[in-house]
């Protein structure tokens, strides 16, 4: 079972945790990605996510489905923020449940790694030295 969301509102850890609960699963791994106050040595004041929502949700579902199959996960929740964020705000939450904790950790790490490679969401940082779309330039 999979729950993917792309939300303009604050993400909620308990919502993701509750979704993946399963009486047959002893292990739940979660990852929370938050906005840091610095990047590449520069102070970050806030940032903005731009997203191609329809495709982003499809890609997120594909990744969650692949993780479920490849790691034998019971349930996967994958929630991503969009719009404007400030330092400390949560950008992404991933929760996965599995009968085995090693699979839970590996499946959770797979989801965040793949999300960062393939999901059409773009981060614009507002820093002291200007604004930057991350990864965009050579």
């Amino acid at each position, binding site marked *: 079972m999979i729950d993917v969301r792309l939300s303009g509102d604050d993400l909620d850890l308990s919502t993701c945790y509750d979704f993946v609960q399963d009486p047959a699963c002893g292990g739940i791994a979660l990852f929370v*990605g938050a906005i840091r106050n610095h990047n590449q040595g520069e102070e970050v004041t806030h940032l903005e*996510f*731009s*997203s*191609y929502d*329809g*495709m*982003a949700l*499809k*890609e997120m579902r594909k990744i969650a489905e692949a993780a479920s199959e490849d790691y034998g996960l019971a349930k996967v929740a994958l929630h*991503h923020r969009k719009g404007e964020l400030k330092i400390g705000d949560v*950008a*992404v939450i991933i929760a996965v449940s599995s009968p085995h904790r090693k699979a839970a950790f590996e499946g959770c790490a797979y989801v*965040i790694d793949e*999300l*960062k*490679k*393939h*999901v*059409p*969401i*773009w*981060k*614009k940082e507002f820093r002291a030295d200007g604004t930057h*779309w*991350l*990864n*965009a*330039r*050579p």
Partner: protein
Amino acid sequence: MSVTYQVQTFAAARELLGSPVSITLPRGAKARDLRQQLLVDFPALATLKDFAIARNEAYALPGEILEAGDELVIIPPVSGG
């Protein structure tokens, strides 16, 4: 015979080109042809590290043939998470 496509942009590509942009290609053109023509018509795209083409909300393989009515999007390097 040629077809004119509207191509949407996001993020760094939108800042470079605005959105949407129009591209005219011979009928039967493939995703790789669209990518090449975009670089010809909009040389500013070369300042991106890279970009992909999405067709109907999925990454297009280079050999995919485009059809009229396709939803086409320039995908700069992503940076979610």
